[in-house]
C-alpha cells in the first residue's frame, strides 16, 4: 500500500484554488476551536437563506441569548461572520467552499493528535494489482502501520454507494496486504441525519467509521464537547 498525489486535472486545480482561499482556513480554525452549538450555527447559516446576522442570533439563544457570556458570544459572532461570508457567495461557490471547509477542519483537528508532517491532502491510495481509485481522499494520515484515510462531506446526502464502496475496498485491500488502514467518513451534518441516510444504503458498511457534527472532536483524540 502506498500513497500518491492526486492527478493535477481541471477539478484539482479549481479545488486547490478554493482550498487556498483564506476564508477556508479562517473558518476551519474557528470551527476547530468551537463546540457543538457553534458548529451547528455554522451549518445552519451556510445552508440558510437569510444573510441577516440578527436573524441567526435570534435562532441561537444558547449562544446569543441573555444567559450567554461575553466569551461565548464573541466566539459565536466570529463563527457567524465567517459562515455568512461563505453563504453570501452564491449557490455554487458556497457549495464548493463548504466542502473545502470540512476538509480543512478535519486537517486542523487531526493536527491535535498526530504530527502535522504525517497529514496530507488530496491523496490516492495504491494497492498491488488493483486499479487506482478515481477520487482521491480529502485527507490522509500517513503513518506506517497506522494509516488513516478521510472522505469529507458537507452533508449526509454525500453518503452514497460510491463513497461507501471506495472506503470498504481500501480497507479490505489494506488487510490483504497485511497493512492497517482506518477509513473514515467525516460528515458535517447531524448524526441522526447521517444514520437515516445510511439506513437505506445497500453498499457494505461493516467497519465503517463515521464522524458527524456531534463527534468531530474524536478526530483530535478529545472527548465530545
Amino acid at each position, binding site marked *: 500500500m502506498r500513497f500518491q498525489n492526486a492527478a493535477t486535472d481541471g477539478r484539482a486545480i479549481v479545488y486547490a484554488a478554493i482550498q487556498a482561499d483564506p476564508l477556508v482556513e479562517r473558518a476551519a480554525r474557528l470551527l476547530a476551536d468551537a463546540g*457543538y*452549538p457553534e458548529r*451547528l450555527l455554522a*451549518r*445552519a447559516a451556510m*445552508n*440558510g*437563506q*437569510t444573510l441577516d446576522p440578527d*436573524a441567526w442570533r*435570534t*435562532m*441561537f*439563544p*444558547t449562544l446569543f*441569548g*441573555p*444567559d450567554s457570556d461575553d466569551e461565548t458570544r464573541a466566539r459565536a459572532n466570529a463563527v457567524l461572520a465567517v459562515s455568512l461570508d461563505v453563504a453570501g457567495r452564491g*449557490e455554487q461557490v458556497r457549495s464548493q467552499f463548504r466542502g473545502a471547509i470540512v476538509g480543512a477542519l478535519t486537517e486542523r483537528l487531526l493536527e491535535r493528535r498526530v504530527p502535522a508532517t504525517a497529514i496530507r491532502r488530496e491523496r490516492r491510495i495504491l494497492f498491488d494489482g488493483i486499479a487506482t481509485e478515481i477520487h482521491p481522499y480529502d485527507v490522509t494520515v500517513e503513518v506506517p502501520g497506522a494509516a488513516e484515510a478521510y472522505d469529507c462531506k458537507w*452533508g*449526509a*446526502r454525500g453518503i452514497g454507494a460510491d463513497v461507501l464502496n471506495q472506503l470498504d475496498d481500501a480497507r479490505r485491500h489494506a488487510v490483504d496486504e497485511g497493512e492497517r488502514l482506518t477509513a473514515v467518513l467525516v460528515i458535517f*451534518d*447531524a*448524526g*441522526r*441525519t447521517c444514520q*437515516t*441516510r445510511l*439506513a*437505506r444504503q445497500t453498499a457494505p458498511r461493516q467497519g465503517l467509521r463515521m464522524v458527524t*457534527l*456531534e463527534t468531530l472532536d474524536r478526530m483530535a483524540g478529545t472527548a465530545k464537547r
Partner: protein
Amino acid sequence: MPPSVDSLLLRAINSLDVLAGTAAPIEDEWQYVRDLVTVWGGALRAVADARVGQVAPPAAEAAIDRLAAEAASVVDPHRAIDWLSTMPAVALLAVGAGSQ
C-alpha cells in the same frame, strides 16, 4: 404566560412539513425526505412528550418563530433538504435539549 417546550416543538414539527413540501420536486430524494420527516419528527415529539407543560427557556419562542420563518423562506428544493436535517437540531438546541 411563557410558552411550554412541547408547544414550541410542535411548531417546529409543522416546519418539517413545510420543508418537505419545498423539497418535493427532487424525486430521487423522495424517500430520504420522508425518512427525515419521520425520524426528526419522532425526535422532536419525544422531547415534547418528555417535557409537556415545562416552561421554555427565555428567547426560545422567538428562536422557534424565526426558525419557522427561515424554513418558510426556503424556495430551493435542495436547500430545503439541507434544512430538513438542520432545522430540527437547531430547534432542540433552542429549547435546551442540546444534541438529543
